[in-house]
């Protein structure tokens, strides 16, 4: 499944607990001179009113999809509102969706995979999670009743970028502790430290494909870490393997893996080398749904390295890696 991305309008999803600085960041995005025309869909009433931006209110409506995928829920409100936005003549350069502090990011992300009209016209650019350095550990450690997800763990697990905000309120030691904890849950996302949500907006708007190469290169130990298998806490597993993938084997394996384990696998992301393809294949999945697009061309002499990260619970590195190796061209079975 490959779609051309160029014409699609990028969408940033902004998550974060109440008090994390999410609204401060939103106001910053709307008032700073960045030359982009932005439409904002708000789920929480903020005092945002900017001449150049269109701000629309929305109330979360989570719908189950009848597609045999038990964890597949979508946001009906977003399908409606995004559809109406895309019918306007004044096309926006960027759309920003602000979720409530308690929102589950999965239905938001899944909306971009499930609805054809949205897939054709919009591209989920990044899920940006704002984290309060002083309070995030309390939120992450909060014990929930059985069957109830910890929303802050989910928001961290789903992030493509994390903004570690309010760094001025804690010690450097505490910051390092928080950062290690965030990386333990989500290894694929870049962490940006900030005070008062002051960040370079280029880091979160229209960032394109996540930079897995950099993230994985940062920390070689991550690529062999097997501490967390059969662990109910949310962790990440990643690997990088050189060589070309057989696209049919890959689709079969991912379909089977995410179809059976998709409840536990929150997100999957990859930059992959498909046999015979001159361009990188950018893969991303949310629970049981996955999708691929063409990325940049492989350059001359560049090793065709596959990089893949899974974020979820109960992840077995050996099982995932051997499954993935089985998709290489020439692999047996």
């Amino acid at each position, binding site marked *: 499944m490959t779609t051309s991305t160029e014409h699609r309008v990028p969408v940033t999803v902004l998550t974060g607990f109440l008090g994390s600085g999410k609204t401060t960041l939103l106001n910053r995005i709307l008032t700073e001179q960045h030359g982009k025309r932005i439409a904002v869909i708000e789920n929480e009433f903020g005092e945002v009113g900017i001449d150049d931006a269109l701000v629309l209110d929305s109330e979360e409506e989570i719908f189950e999809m009848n597609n045999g995928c038990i964890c597949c829920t979508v946001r*009906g409100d977003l399908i409606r509102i995004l559809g109406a936005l895309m019918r306007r003549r004044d096309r926006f350069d960027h759309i920003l969706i602000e979720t409530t502090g308690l929102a589950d990011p999965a239905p938001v992300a899944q909306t971009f995979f499930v609805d054809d009209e949205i897939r054709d016209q919009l591209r989920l650019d990044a899920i940006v999670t704002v984290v309060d350095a002083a309070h995030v550990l309390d939120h992450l450690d909060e014990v929930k009743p059985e069957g109830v997800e910890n929303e802050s763990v989910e928001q961290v697990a789903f992030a493509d970028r994390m903004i570690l905000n309010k760094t001025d309120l804690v010690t450097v030691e505490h910051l390092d502790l928080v950062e290690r904890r965030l990386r333990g849950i989500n290894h694929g996302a870049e962490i940006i430290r900030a005070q008062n949500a002051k960040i370079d907006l280029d880091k979160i708007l229209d960032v394109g494909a996540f930079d897995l190469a950099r993230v994985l290169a940062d920390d070689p130990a991550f690529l062999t870490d097997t501490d967390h298998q059969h662990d109910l806490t949310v962790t990440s597993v990643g690997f990088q393997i050189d060589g070309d993938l057989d696209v049919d084997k890959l689709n079969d394996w991912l379909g089977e893996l995410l179809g059976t384990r998709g409840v536990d696998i929150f997100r999957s992301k990859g930059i992959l080398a498909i046999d015979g393809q001159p361009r990188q294949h950018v893969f991303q999945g949310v629970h049981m749904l996955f999708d691929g697009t063409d990325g940049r061309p492989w350059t001359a002499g560049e090793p065709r390295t596959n990089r893949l990260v899974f974020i979820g619970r109960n992840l077995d590195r050996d099982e995932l890696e051997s499954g993935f190796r089985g998709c290489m061209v020439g692999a047996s079975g």
Partner: protein
Amino acid sequence: MSALLTGHRPWRAEVGDAVVALAVCRDGRVAVAGAEGSVTLLSAAGGIDHRAVVSDGALTVSWSPNADRLAVGSIDGVDVLDATGAILGGHREGWCSSLAWSADGTRVAAAAGHAVVVLGADGTELWRAHRGSTVTGIAWVRRRVATAAYGGVHVHDRSAAPDVMPFTGSLLALSVSPDRRWAASGNQDATLKVWRVGRRGEELAMSGYPTKISTLQFSPDSTLLASGGGSDVTVWDFAGAGPRGSTPRILRAHRKVVTSLAWSPSGDLLAGAAADGRVAVWRARAAVPGNPAAAVDEVVRDCAATALDWDGAGRLLAGWADSIVAAHVLDGT
């Protein structure tokens, strides 16, 4: 067919806003709703009589049967206008993508977020009924009002509990047959669901559509149900025993998803608009099941066609996303 041509010339008008809906009243005047909230009234000859912005985004428009009132649904409510375009009243509350006037023209039922409100011809609220999620389709069933929302179709009475026709899924559009025997919904999960109004156990479910179904229309004689969902139009035959186990007629012309469908007043012709910019007309009844039928007439522009209606003289009105509305006189085939 030469009678179609008498006294009505084709024309083209620019309304300054992406067309999202249009409606022709019996004397040939055209009301056009725009994506940025405009309402434009065009004379039968295509001249602009009135233009005003009523909201941040219009979604639907409907004339009362005697053409003295106009209701406009928007992203944040409904307005009732007189025939000159002056706003008489309305209701600012939630999403209104669906409207229906009662047969006598004294009341209009309008979606209002998670509710349906019934307004008098001056826009004052007479009664309302609640649904658990956004109302996406509305139709009158004698003195009662049918609504489509996540969970099924409800037929509301002003004073009694609703008649519930359940469906687990997200409903996007509703059509009730003019003889009031059937209610049909187009759904997010790419299925069509049909209930026998007032009877249990006679539900039908049609699947196999390539995309969600956001437009469907019963023919004026209630024997055919035309549905979008993908680029083809699928027509189910409700004559005699109904469509159970039957093969539908397929009408083919479009290369992108069908956005709007409209039967000619006589029911001989069906028009379909699509995102590829094409407006096509078929002799739906003459199509043979299992053998896709080609259009008998077409109008093509290079941006999405979004809205359709027929006037009383057999002229077809169509609207496009580049703010063009055209009155088309059919080829005398």
